[in-house]
């Protein structure tokens, strides 16, 4: 029984949902895979909050330039039409509502759209926020890309977040390895179930009312 798709396939699924011409920020971690899934000829403009629009893919090994990196501090390239700017201008773009889509990782997403992705709240853990709180409130659409379940089998889709929040009511859609969920006024609704997953099986996995009869 097939119930999960690979992270690469999920990245491709997200990339296919982003319209040509969109301004998109990809959070650090798994969401960076979406960049590789965007066809080279597609004009989707990637924003990286450390100061660039028009980010391209990874460079050849001998073209690596330590001054040219993305928010995950990985080496990247610049496309024709790129622009560099400083951090205040970069976050003004984000906070001013000029990004169409951002894709973020998550520890938890609640059915009211709350996002928790910066701290598990675990004792002794070193907190780190980066630009996630700004992305959460700034992008027109906040997509989350994550496994549906933690390694312990707990659902990352929850009724209410127990981990510290990144943003309130900000998530519009969640792409998981089991299914894609929209956040609606009535809670999560299954947009697309992968493989053998059904609304009923997903409701059981998450313990949430997903609107199946």
């Amino acid at each position, binding site marked *: 029984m097939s119930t999960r798709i690979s992270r690469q396939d999920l990245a491709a699924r997200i990339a296919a949902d982003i319209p040509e011409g969109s301004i998109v920020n990809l959070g*650090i*971690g*798994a969401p*960076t895979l979406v960049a590789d899934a965007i066809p080279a000829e597609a004009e989707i403009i990637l924003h*990286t*909050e*450390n*100061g*660039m629009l028009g980010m391209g893919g990874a460079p050849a090994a001998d073209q*690596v*330039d*330590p*001054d*040219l*990196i*993305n928010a*995950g*501090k*990985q*080496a990247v390239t*610049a496309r024709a039409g790129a622009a*560099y*700017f*400083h*951090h*205040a201008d*970069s*976050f*003004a773009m*984000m*906070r001013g509502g000029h990004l169409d889509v951002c894709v973020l*990782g998550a*520890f938890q997403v609640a059915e009211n759209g709350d996002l928790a*992705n910066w701290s598990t709240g675990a004792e*002794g853990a*070193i*907190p*780190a*926020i*980066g*630009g*996630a*709180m*700004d992305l959460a*409130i*700034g992008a027109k659409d906040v997509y989350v890309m*994550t*496994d549906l379940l*933690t390694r312990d089998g707990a659902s990352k889709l929850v009724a209410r977040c127990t981990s*510290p*929040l*990144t*943003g*309130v009511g900000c998530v519009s859609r969640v792409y998981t390895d089991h299914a894609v969920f929209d956040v609606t006024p009535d809670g999560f609704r299954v947009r697309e179930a992968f493989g053998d997953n059904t609304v009923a099986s997903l409701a059981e996995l998450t313990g949430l009312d997903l609107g199946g009869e």
Partner: protein
Amino acid sequence: MIDKTIADTAAAVAGIADGSTVMIGGFGRAGQPVELIDALIDHGASDLTIVNNNAGNGDVGLARLLSTGRVRKIICSFPRQSDSWVFDDLYRSGRIELELVPQGNLAERIRAAGAGIGGFYSPTAVGTELAEGKEERVIDGRRYLLEYPIHADVALISALRGDRWGNLVYRETARNFGPIMAAAATSTIAQVDEIVPLGDIDPESVVTPGLFVDRVVAVGERAWLQDGAFIGGVDLEGRPLATEENA
């Protein structure tokens, strides 16, 4: 004649006092003024408050400064990285104070200091635990938090080229915090790869006008641009991205 150029990094950082708040440019290592930080370590100033996006990488630059024990407090957005072991150890053992600031608030608070803004209402962090103790206000139906500027005594920044008036241009994403920190500090010290004659920088392309810069020191081509140590990102939990175990 105005000449802000300084012969060497030691002279450039002379006069930085104990107890200073020092902004240090850079995002990770891109734009980090490693040579100036090394000079600051040799200079010996202590009891410092550091403002930087991160909390050091590896054992060089900011990480090496932290390892000297001369940093009392760090204000940053993303301390946890795959190679932030120096900070991690200090933090876990309670030997450094951390003020965690969302990256956009960090940038905007620094910008506000340079622009004479007394405070501003930010949409970021509303409803999160970082909102605790902050004044919230609803404006036009949206919730905001009141944030205050971050001023510094000194900014250490890195740029590509400078002239004797202090005009600067940067290189690619190494621009990051340099321009806003230059404006927010009482005294700004810039290391550049190269000092060029006045007039060589196109006035349409100057990124940091000279009035924000006090000292410019040429460090030559940065050797650490070539050492390969800058590659590799981190995931949500700060582990190297090459490790595929984390979602």
